[in-house]
């Protein structure tokens, strides 16, 4: 405790500012990701998407939010009330707090005090480098698996067969894809030799530009990157892996019984998860905030994250939903063995090529 309070006052100011900025950034991205998704998918289906709320439909997310806000709150009589009420929060919070360890820019200097653009970190002038959570990646993996509790609780507490099936599917799916995603990251550990996200990003900087990114370092990390991204999409239940809320079979899956803001929270959690996953992929595979010097680092970070978000929407507009057994087969019989072999192959590559 003493060590925590011993830091210069600037540290606390910067911390609050960073938290606020990152939070507002994610919230705004979440709001406009819904708009962008409808637009992108609209154009891919040769439609226009929202056009009539504000200029080119730009006020649509606000209108949607207001509408959901004024909807009636329905709590089913048979539901387990406490779990039912707390589930959306449990889904939402882990989606946001993963951002605490993601570096979204280089260091900035304010009044002679160096602030690293990463929430849970501090610049130590005595060592001359940024100290951050040295198990950052594990923290992210942990938070990602916490998110499933919200969904399972929602499914169970609603006391409805559709919700329960949705929750069950969500838990099975998230657990199976987490394995492959985790193993894909192991290749990155082998390359970086560190679990700290700051170190991982710094290691990707180098002089080679794009070639320094882990995605393009060697063929095995490329494979790991692709698999990690796909598994992440599966983990956050987006199409084509959106079985927990498959409308055609399960009405709306785990959030069937939810209404009003609680429903909106699940939606926000889904999109916040998407932002987080894209940010993690950027950090681990796409060189984090590094990019040509004509733009500041945080802009590169945002550009890369938005590109990945676009990819998520693109994938959603393209593929139909998997059947459940196909999904499980893909996770256990394809991705898991590939990533296992991939870890060994990466290690051999490092040993041979260096």
């Amino acid at each position, binding site marked *: 405790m003493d060590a925590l309070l011993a830091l210069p006052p600037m540290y606390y100011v910067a911390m609050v500012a960073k938290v606020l900025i990152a939070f507002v950034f994610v919230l705004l991205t979440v709001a406009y990701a819904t708009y962008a998704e409808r637009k992108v998918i*609209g154009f*891919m*289906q040769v*439609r226009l998407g929202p056009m009539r709320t504000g200029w080119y439909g730009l006020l649509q997310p606000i209108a949607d939010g207001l509408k959901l806000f004024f909807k009636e709150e329905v709590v089913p009589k048979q539901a387990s009330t406490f779990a039912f009420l707390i589930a959306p929060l449990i889904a939402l919070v882990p989606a946001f707090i993963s951002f605490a360890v993601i570096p979204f820019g280089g260091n900035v200097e304010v009044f002679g005090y160096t602030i690293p653009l990463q929430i849970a970190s501090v610049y130590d002038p005595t060592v001359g480098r940024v100290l951050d959570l040295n198990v950052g990646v594990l923290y992210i993996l942990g938070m990602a698996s916490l998110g499933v509790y919200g969904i399972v609780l929602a499914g169970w507490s609603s006391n409805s067969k559709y919700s329960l099936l949705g929750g069950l599917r969500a838990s099975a799916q998230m657990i199976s894809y987490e394995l492959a995603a985790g193993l894909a990251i192991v290749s990155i550990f082998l390359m970086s030799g560190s679990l700290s996200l700051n170190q991982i990003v710094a290691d990707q900087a180098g002089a080679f530009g794009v070639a320094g990114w882990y995605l393009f370092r060697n063929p095995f990390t490329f494979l790991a990157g692709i698999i990690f991204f796909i598994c992440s999409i599966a983990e956050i239940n987006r199409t084509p892996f959106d079985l927990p809320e498959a409308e055609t079979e399960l009405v709306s899956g785990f959030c069937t019984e939810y209404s009003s803001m609680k429903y909106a929270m699940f939606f926000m959690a889904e999109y916040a998860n998407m932002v987080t996953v894209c940010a993690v992929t950027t950090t681990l595979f796409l060189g984090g905030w590094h990019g040509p010097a004509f733009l500041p680092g945080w802009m590169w970070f945002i550009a890369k994250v938005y590109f990945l978000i676009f990819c998520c929407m*693109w994938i959603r*507009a393209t593929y139909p939903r998997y059947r459940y057994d196909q999904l499980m087969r893909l996770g256990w019989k394809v991705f898991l063995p590939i990533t296992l072999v991939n870890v060994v192959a990466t290690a051999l590559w490092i040993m041979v090529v260096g």
Partner: protein
Amino acid sequence: MIMPLLQGLKITFLHMFKKPVTLQYPDERPNVVPNFRGLHGLKVSHERAKCVACYLCPTVCPAKCITVEAGEDANHDKFAARYEIDMLRCIFCGYCVEACPVDALKMTQEFELASYKREDFVFVKERLLEKK
């Protein structure tokens, strides 16, 4: 296994740059083709409806939504004293137009038939004449 997936991505990506086919309806009007089967119209000639109240259209109507009552005018000619079409039941098949022996009935390009009250969907003779 991977190529078809990439092919799919390519198709959706290229479609993004096509001109959207969406019609922004209240602002942009659709092109209604000439033989569109919309709201009915009773044709008028010599200042009166051509209909001679022969009852062929209510007979042929598969939805049984036309009500005709004949009347006799000063020249002892038969005319439709009452002519109503219930648009809530009409299926816009156009058989009534086909059946009419004196070509008194037509279908217009009018398609915006929404209304707030049930009664408003019963189009009486005067309302049908207006749309001539």
